[in-house]
């Protein structure tokens, strides 16, 4: 690589021009092209150090988004496949307007192709397209025939572009199934605008916001046939899908609820969103997953974005889906071989934006041409979105070429051949210098009236070599912002707009999906479980590491409680526990750190972390960040860091503080809406259950409570200060048990949890059909009543048999309550399964 600039100096641009490819910035003589002229002239005012610093800032902005959105636990699979290069890609007004005209023509044509293929099939009947395009195509999904009834099926469309050595643009691939990348382009723009040196800002750069506004308008228009104020959701395949980040970003930017398949359900003739308050009808679905999985009833499969019965509702016109399932068909490269003819047939005009030259081997004449110049071409499956497997013939040895020819001859219709293109060069700021990279551009269009609007910008990806780049948006090693210049100054528009519009005050926000409620409920349970286990473990370890471990009379019950909770194996809690102590000391670090111990603290932390990642939209970024940090700190290879119980103790102490921080952030930061209520219910149920269970553990080991036992109880329940303030050092059974069970001023007592639960249950949405109290309310009221009726005698009784029964009831009630809440509010969702109709074997 040529070094054009050194640190400390002013930024300089290359003057040498590569000979075999087109250079975006420089003409043949090394002078800046007109669109770049003003930018290049201002570059010498910027120092390398400044630019490098700002480039880093831009990356940081993206990383911060990543912290907010990235869900991948291992940290290997990044939410963004590439880094961001601050150096922009610039296209002038005239050139862009021509290109945009070509893109719009392409979108109109391919949209009509989709509707024809899944409709009247005029192109096939009249021999413009070969029938193989459908019949031999595994991507042609017969249940989609008849659902393309609207004037346009493609709402969001993308075309991959590359510029060849002759300076002409070529379409490399078309995307219409669920085109990814528009939100990445937006994110790039926001980061670049913030980080770019002021002197390099260009007021002529066209804004991206109008494009998203057009998209919003279009989606609204789709839904207005059903409702004046249509409800729109963005249906994502979920957190395991590589572009989940984009779904989250897009949903937030456009202001739509992000949902997964299990959130939606078909009832009668509509699609509904399952919310805490019941079923809410949905008018428009932006579908981001593969169309093959959209309706498990008619298409089979069990994709996370699948909604059984959806196609029926689309067919009846009771929901609009963008893009209409089936649009993915035109991603097959075979269409590129016929697009010029289709354009002539329908529009009587030439295709303005040419595709990369493509031949379909199923046609005798085209196959002959392919074989004539075989070694110059790339061979692809005809019926698979381009970007998958492809073979560059020149890279094969003679044996490989023969095999490929055999494959093509056996089933010629399964293949297309395309020319290779040497992509244009563009300057890239890399390692403190400006170098050349090679660019691919993804452009985006949205349907508008009967035509399409082009996003004046796009997602630029850069690879270090001009070689063919894989056409998925994750290819390339860095990305860029695309600056499309306007003729004159552009007016700012923002989607965050409507700034001057007065708002009506409200106390509730967007619809709240049941799945989110479910996750938050379990998040609350995990959080409190982790906290409780930590306190128990701390008490145990402090005693194990003290000199007189074997003399501590409270140790047996503490270990018994750990065993009852499932953190240690029951064998450790047997009578002769002293014999077990050395083993326990050895085993404890492993049992604590092992995520596989499903009832242990590590599993609880990891579950908390997982659920927080899934539902980060519903908690503050700080809370999410703190949960992440806590989980990473505790779970990251502890075996290697812990050399003994003292290290474990330190980790547990830290964890208790971290959990308190999470708890505090939740308490202070969350609006007291349904999200907070569900989360808090999870916590309260867990806490009441654990405290009751712990007290039963202690009672099963000790008939009478010695002072050290009572002290340890206060320690675990975190009430030592309160106790001392009230009773000084006079440790008595009834006073300690009161604090644990029946004291309504103690935030950790069982009765406090029950009273809070009672309040939550009242506040949950109810069908209001019965004048009597519902099941969950009856359970909670009964438990509150039982605990409030605890008498002084109950607390003093030795052994405390009456109390034991009450505690056992509380434990059972909490389990029942959890079950009832889940059934009623949370999981009317669940995983759809196929009836194995195959069991019915015709004979």
């Amino acid at each position: 690589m040529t070094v054009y600039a050194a640190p400390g100096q002013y930024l300089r641009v290359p003057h040498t021009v590569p000979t075999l490819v087109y250079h975006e910035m420089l003409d043949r003589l090394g002078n800046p092209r007109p669109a770049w002229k003003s930018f290049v002239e201002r570059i010498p005012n910027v120092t390398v150090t400044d630019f490098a610093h700002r480039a880093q800032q831009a990356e940081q902005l993206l990383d911060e988004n990543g912290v907010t959105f990235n869900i991948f636990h291992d940290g290997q699979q990044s939410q963004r496949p590439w880094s961001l290069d601050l150096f922009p890609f610039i296209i002038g007004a005239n050139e862009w307007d021509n290109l945009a005209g070509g893109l719009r023509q392409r979108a109109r044509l391919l949209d009509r192709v989709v509707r024809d293929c899944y409709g009247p099939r005029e192109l096939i009947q009249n021999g413009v397209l070969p029938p193989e395009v459908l019949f031999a195509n595994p991507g042609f999904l017969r249940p989609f025939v008849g659902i393309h009834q609207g004037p346009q099926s493609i709402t969001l469309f993308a075309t991959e572009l590359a510029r060849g050595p002759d300076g002409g643009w070529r379409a490399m691939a078309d995307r219409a199934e669920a085109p990814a990348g528009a939100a990445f382009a937006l994110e790039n723009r926001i980061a670049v605008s913030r980080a770019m040196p002021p002197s390099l800002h260009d007021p002529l750069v066209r804004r991206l916001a109008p494009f998203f506004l057009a998209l919003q308008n279009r989606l609204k228009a789709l839904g207005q046939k059903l409702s004046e104020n249509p409800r729109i959701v963005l249906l994502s395949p979920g957190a395991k899908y590589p572009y989940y980040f984009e779904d989250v970003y897009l949903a937030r930017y456009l202001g739509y609820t992000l949902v997964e398949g299990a959130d939606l359900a078909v009832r009668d003739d509509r699609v509904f969103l399952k919310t805490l308050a019941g079923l809410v009808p949905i008018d428009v679905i932006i579908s981001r997953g593969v169309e093959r999985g959209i309706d498990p009833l008619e298409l089979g499969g069990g994709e996370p974005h699948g909604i059984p019965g959806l196609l029926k509702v689309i067919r009846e016109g009771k929901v609009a889906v963008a893009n209409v399932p089936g649009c993915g068909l035109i991603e097959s490269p075979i269409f590129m071989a016929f697009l010029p003819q289709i354009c002539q047939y329908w529009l009587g005009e030439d295709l303005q934006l040419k595709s990369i030259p493509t031949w379909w081997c199923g046609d005798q004449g085209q196959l002959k041409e392919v074989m004539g110049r075989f070694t110059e071409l790339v061979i692809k499956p005809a019926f698979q979105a381009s970007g998958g497997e492809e073979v560059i013939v020149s890279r094969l040895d003679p044996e490989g070429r023969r095999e490929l020819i055999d494959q093509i001859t056996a089933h010629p219709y399964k293949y297309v051949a395309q020319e290779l293109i040497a992509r244009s060069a563009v300057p890239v700021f890399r390692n403190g210098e400006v170098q050349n990279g090679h660019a691919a551009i993804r452009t985006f269009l949205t349907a508008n009236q009967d035509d399409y609007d082009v996003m004046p910008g796009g997602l630029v990806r850069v690879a270090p070599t001009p070689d063919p780049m894989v056409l998925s948006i994750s290819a390339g090693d860095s990305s860029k912002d695309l600056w499309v210049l306007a003729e004159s100054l552009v007016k700012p528009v923002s989607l965050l707009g409507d700034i001057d519009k007065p708002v009506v005050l409200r106390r509730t926000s967007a619809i709240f999906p049941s799945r989110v409620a479910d996750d938050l409920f379990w998040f609350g349970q995990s959080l409190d479980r982790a906290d409780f286990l930590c306190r128990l473990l701390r008490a145990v370890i402090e005693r194990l590491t003290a000199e007189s471990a074997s003399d501590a009379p409270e140790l047996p019950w503490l270990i018994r409680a750990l065993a009852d909770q499932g953190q240690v194996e029951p064998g450790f809690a047997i009578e002769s526990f002293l014999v077990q102590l050395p083993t326990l000391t050895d085993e404890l670090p492993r049992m604590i750190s092992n995520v596989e111990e499903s009832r242990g603290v590590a599993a609880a932390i990891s579950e908390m972390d997982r659920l927080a990642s899934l539902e980060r939209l519903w908690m503050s970024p700080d809370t999410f960040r703190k949960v992440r940090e806590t989980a990473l700190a505790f779970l990251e290879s502890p075996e290697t860091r812990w050399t003994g119980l003292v290290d474990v103790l330190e980790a547990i102490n830290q964890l208790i503080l971290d959990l308190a921080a999470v708890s505090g952030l939740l308490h202070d930061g969350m609006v007291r809406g349904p999200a907070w209520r569900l989360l808090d219910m999870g916590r309260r149920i867990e806490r009441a259950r654990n405290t009751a269970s712990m007290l039963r553990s202690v009672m099963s080991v000790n008939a009478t409570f010695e002072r050290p036992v009572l002290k340890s109880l206060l320690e675990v329940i975190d009430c030592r200060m309160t106790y001392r303030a009230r009773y000084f050092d006079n440790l008595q059974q009834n006073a300690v048990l009161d604090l644990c069970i029946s004291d309504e001023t103690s935030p950790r007592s069982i009765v406090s949890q029950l009273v809070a639960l009672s309040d939550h249950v009242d506040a949950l949405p109810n069908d209001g059909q019965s004048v009597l109290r519902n099941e969950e309310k009856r359970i909670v009221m009964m438990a509150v009543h039982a605990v409030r009726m605890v008498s002084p005698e109950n607390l003093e009784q030795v052994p405390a048999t009456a109390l034991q029964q009450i505690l056992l009831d509380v434990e059972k009630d909490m389990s029942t309550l959890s079950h009832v809440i889940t059934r009623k509010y949370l999981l009317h969702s669940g995983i759809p399964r196929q009836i194995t109709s195959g069991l019915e074997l015709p004979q």
Partner: protein
Amino acid sequence: MKYRIVHKTSYSSADPVSVGHNEAWLTPRCTQSQSVLAHRIDIEPQPSTRVVLNDYFGNTVTQFLFNQGYSKLLISAINEVEIVTPAKWVTSPPWEVVLADVQAHYSHEALQAFEFTFDSPRCRRSTAFADYGASSFHPDRPILEVLADLLERFFVDFKYDSTATTVSTPVEQVFRQRRGVCQDFAHLLISILRSLGFAARYVSGYLRTLPPPGKPRLVGADASHAWLSVYCGPLGWIDIDPTNKQFPTTDHLTIAWGRDYTDVAPVKGVYIGGSSPQLSVSVDVCPINELPAAESLDASAT
């Protein structure tokens, strides 16, 4: 010949299914030799919604949904059809003409048939299948003779064995082990014909079975049946039944056709909740003149 067919499918599950979506291919098609006199599908419990539509291949599908779920589901299809003996072709064109017709697909019929020459989920083409079929294709042999010869050879080479396969046994394995049931045989012969470039489709339906001499007819002992249909150019589609080595006449009752079983499985469905559903099926095919008088023709058209 008039028949009454009662096809009962029941699912029961230990835990109730909370939501269920279903599709049923249980209504007979009208064909040149078959007319539907009456048809009805009774579903218990009453579904929340129910619609009837035509699928891609023109079969009648009933879609129904249970919002409130069920723990036992009973689907009873009661159909009455009349079958006349299909046209008997004495002569037929050479197979080369048929093959050229479907591969060139100039006519509307040939273009439609062309769709059935490609792979489908259960029927994959291969050179081994083509090799097996090839020896029946002597030059200039009329297509019906070719098919008769194929049926003859197939019947000798493949043994009916209801224990040899399951519903998901791949067609290649059926070919290797030379055993299977009607569905396997239909899939395999479709694959063989498609491997040679012909258009073949899967037909799902019923077969009238005759009780052993001297024994009474057993109600509900019949089963659904499957065979295939081959596009024969000017003759149109000709049904053949490899399991019984027959060109079907009046004993085969057609329900639906598609590329293979996956397009026309009698009952498909998706459910949420429930556990280990139990399925049972009974089919009864009875000539109407053998029905007890009181029972006849109470299936009203819906």
